[in-house]
């Protein structure tokens, strides 16, 4: 699974992207975040306030309860500040 990070989520995780093999039982974005936070302090820091970090699956905004089945690319980023 390809994961991509933007803005301060990217800075905290310390990488722009990575490809990870996910363990069994990770069905949703929320499951994925919970698992990432077990992988090290940098992830704990990035997701310390889970409610703030937004997610997209294959370029579409999704909620934490969204299924990741079939996803090619999952992105995590702060609230958008464009415009």
């Amino acid at each position, binding site marked *: 699974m390809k994961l*991509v990070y*933007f*803005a*301060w989520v990217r800075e905290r995780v310390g990488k722009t992207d990575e490809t990870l093999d996910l363990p069994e039982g990770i069905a949703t974005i929320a499951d994925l975040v919970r698992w990432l936070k077990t992988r090290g302090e940098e992830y704990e820091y990035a997701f310390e306030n889970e409610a703030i970090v937004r997610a*997209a699956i294959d*370029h*579409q*905004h999704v909620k934490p309860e969204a299924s990741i089945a079939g996803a090619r690319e999952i*992105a995590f*980023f*702060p*609230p*958008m*500040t*464009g*415009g």
Partner: protein
Amino acid sequence: MAIIRIQVEAFDAAAETAALTTGRGDIGATVAFTGFCRDEGGRLSALELEHYPGMAEAEIACIASEAEARWPLLGLTVIHRYGLIRPGEPIVLVLAASAHRRAAFEAAEFMMDYLKTRAPFWKREHLKDGNVGAWVDAKGADDAAMERWG
């Protein structure tokens, strides 16, 4: 079909307006919104804009389709820059054309409200003293502005 561009380069609002309107007798109104980099009382040397390539185009196309479904538009152009942008330079252009003014105004305002809260761009401050400052926080006022469109 909206024209959407994500680019580093500055844009030319007049040329974009001409591209939409030249030779047409059905357009009665255009609204061109331009968003500029402010210096925040002299504090900033620049804003750095990061974006999510691919998703930025897709999300703006999605918002533009929504606008085209809601209003009888005769043209819609969105240009959003990324990279380092100095105070006084333009960041974003939304250009809406219609037969009548209300649709053009509303569509442009709708596009901006949605861009602010849904387009995957993030701003970081670069300070006059040479330091890289904080990421700009999202504003609750922007969420409220988007929500009024239902």
